[in-house]
């Protein structure tokens, strides 16, 4: 036994392994921070390299990229209001207002600490209770997934900051965009108007980067260029002056702040681990659901959307908690829970390790070595990111006339590179125009993305369930898990109904 432990520690703390892991985390933070480039892409690109190094080093690096990118995405979300990765879209809701409110450092450090906390919690769960958790996840069939997605759509009502009807309209637009392309069951082509590039559907990354990033960049650029909006320029100058006057003493991070967001962090960690362990749900959904739930359970829900740090902590813990959790079904049954887990599975297979129930038994040393690496990678991520934050925070103070074209070029490049597709670039630009329209008319963007993510999944689950239930709709209610989700939905509807009524009474 002692020999085994020594072997594991020796493997995990070998210098090359630590170096590869650190390089992976650095790469992850960087690609995460660049809109359009995502951790998945970096992992896919580096996959062939993993043939050439030892399993521990290869897996450490890939895991590092995932962890790094989960935090990295929040850097651009907070600094420019442009999510670096799909998973960080929810972080924009409060991260960007927090930065504008003069607290970029607090927001970033909150994001970092809750990221690391969420990651650590889900990693420990992966190490210690992977098998029972995966067994529980297997109870999620189409019936349960459909109920979960219905609940997720209900969450939209919790996300909306401004007018409820605008939020619902935005979600409907997202749902609609999600129906374009091949239908998930019979492969019939919908709403492509004969454009063959649309048959695969609208891709997520270009849509997301377009709606969030391109629109924001174009608006900022428009302000910069337009001579007519002198008033705006003056406003911006005032804002810029504010930022140059930026008072670091008022922006100190403290343990007190960490504790004040701890509840949100825990909500995010729980939600992220849960969603992450479900095959196919994904980190963006986890982030949004964490945000919605944290807002609902917060003592000050009215602060959400205005730059509260709780609104940064919840989605960041949520998306990072999927890192460990998405490996749970992979390790227990060989079922990858996300695109990243699938890539990670491919890397394991290339190393001659078959993910699945026999994996740990057959590869004790390497798997436990990997567990140790995953845990210490969390701390490397913490220190490395801590060191990099001052650097990245400075980025936010670069003049818009330099920053906007640079970020724009990176977004174009990243979008093209993710699938080598020029069509995706057009989607990006079109989504940018849509984003400008929505922003100008004060439609919230979060519900749109959530609708787009949830729609196709919900449709697939519903149709699978109906096939299994031989077309009987009552089949949808024959699962206690599903029933409890529906009960939660009804409960939140009632809560919203009464809170709206109360508000109306108060206004009268």
């Amino acid at each position: 036994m002692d020999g085994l432990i020594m072997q594991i520690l020796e493997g995990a703390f070998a210098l090359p392994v630590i170096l590869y892991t650190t390089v992976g985390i650095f790469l992850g933070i960087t690609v995460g921070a660049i809109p359009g480039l995502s951790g998945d892409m970096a992992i896919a690109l580096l996959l062939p390299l993993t043939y050439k190094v030892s399993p521990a080093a290869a897996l450490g690096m890939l895991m590092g990229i995932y962890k790094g990118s989960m935090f990295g995405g929040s850097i651009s979300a907070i600094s420019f209001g442009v999510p670096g990765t799909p998973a960080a879209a929810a972080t924009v809701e409060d991260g960007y207002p927090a930065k504008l409110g003069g607290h970029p450092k607090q927001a970033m450090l909150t994001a970092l600490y809750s990221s690391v906390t969420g990651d650590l919690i889900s990693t420990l769960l992966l190490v210690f209770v992977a098998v029972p958790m995966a067994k529980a996840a297997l109870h999620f069939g189409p019936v349960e997934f459909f109920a979960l997605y219905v609940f997720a759509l209900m969450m939209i009502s919790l996300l909306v900051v401004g007018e409820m009807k605008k939020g619902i309209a935005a979600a409907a637009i997202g749902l609609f965009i999600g129906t374009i392309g091949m239908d998930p069951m019979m492969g019939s082509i919908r709403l492509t108007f004969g454009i063959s590039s649309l048959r695969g559907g609208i891709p997520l990354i270009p849509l997301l980067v377009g709606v969030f990033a391109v629109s924001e960049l174009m608006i900022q650029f428009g302000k910069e260029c337009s001579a007519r909006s002198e008033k705006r320029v003056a406003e911006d100058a005032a804002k810029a002056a504010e930022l140059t006057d930026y008072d670091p003493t008022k922006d100190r991070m403290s343990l007190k702040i960490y504790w004040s967001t701890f509840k949100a962090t825990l909500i995010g960690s729980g939600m992220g681990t849960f969603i992450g362990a479900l095959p196919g749900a994904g980190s963006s959904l986890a982030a949004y659901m964490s945000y919605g739930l944290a807002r609902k359970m917060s003592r000050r829900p009215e602060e959400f959307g205005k730059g509260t740090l709780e609104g940064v902590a919840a989605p960041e813990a949520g998306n990072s908690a999927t890192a460990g959790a998405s490996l749970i079904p992979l390790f227990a049954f060989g079922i990858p829970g996300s695109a990243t887990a699938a890539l990670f599975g491919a890397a394991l297979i290339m190393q001659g390790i078959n993910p699945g129930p026999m994996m740990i038994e057959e590869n004790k040393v390497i798997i436990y070595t990997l567990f140790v690496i995953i845990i210490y990678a969390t701390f490397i991520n913490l220190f490395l990111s801590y060191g990099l934050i001052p650097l990245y925070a400075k980025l936010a103070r670069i003049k818009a006339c330099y920053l906007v074209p640079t970020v724009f070029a990176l977004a174009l490049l990243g979008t093209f590179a993710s699938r080598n597709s020029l069509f995706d670039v057009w989607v990006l630009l079109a989504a940018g125009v849509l984003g400008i329209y929505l922003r100008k008319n004060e439609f919230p963007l979060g519900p749109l993305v959530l609708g787009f993510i949830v729609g196709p999944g919900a449709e697939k689950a519903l149709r699978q369930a109906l096939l299994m239930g031989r077309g009987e709709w009552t089949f949808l209610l024959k699962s206690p898990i599903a029933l409890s989700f529906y009960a939660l939905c009804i409960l939140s509807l009632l809560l919203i109904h009464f809170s709206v009524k109360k508000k109306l009474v108060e206004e009268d």
Partner: protein
Amino acid sequence: MMTQKKALLVAAVLLMAFSFGTIAEGAEFPKAKQIRMVVPYGAGGGVDISTRILATHAQDILGQRIDVVCMPAAGGQEGINFVLQQPRDGYTLLVTDYGPLVTTALTEEVNYDLTDWVPLVQITEVVPTFFVLSESPLKDVADWVKTAKDKPESLTVAHGRHLSVPHLPLILFEKTAGLKNTHVPTTGGSEALAFVLGKKVDVGASVPSTIASTVKAGTVRPLAVCSLERVATLPETPTMKELGYDVVLPAWYTVFAPKGVPEETLRVLEEKFIEALNSDGAKEMAAKSNVLLTPYGRDKTAGLYEGTISSLKTILSDVTK
């Protein structure tokens, strides 16, 4: 005098440089530029991994860099069209299974004809496999056939996407055995496996690599494979053919050149690719990645390509009816 000599020398050097340039331009294949192998799937998938095994070892043998380019957009059609748009010089090749290339061409409108492609070298073959949970009352294919015949459509079968590599043999099997099941399309083998493990469906259809570890652990029982011979990773599992059902529909991962590439170039590519796939390095890398290399040359590959097209036409004519 000296300067004149120098000038001459410079001129000579320049001339030589230019002439090297021209040699490079019309150089023997593959000296001119790097080779691109386009994969109509995302990175990390089965086709991508197999392609990288070939590319890694073929570039040393060919003496030219090979880039693997993943172009999954529009269900793979973007990658396929990209290859068709490039000059037909053998520097841009396509590596795919029959899904995006053949099935799509037979069910939808595409920009090419199936005769526009020259199958060059087969890298590997994946075999559709039917499986159940170990505790399932269906012990073997005979049980499956009996239950499905007694109560048509009472059994649910989860396969990958509609008309995907595991779905077509299912249709063929039902046709051959004269039975009907309820088909549940999923996003792929892992979802099908999850549904079987979670007892959401009765039977799953996928490929051996998806279920290998659960089979080893004894939680999943493979019923049959749809190839001519048994699969090395599942030696106990009978083929459908052995059981008396003519369901042989393995999916090849094959390198294609667009029609019009010079014969000499095709010959070089075929020879070097086969050499690369037979190298020890490739074999070792393939064994690590659970890929069983089947390096077939042009003659055999062309036959398999034709064969797949005609079986697919038969199966699909029933489905689309």
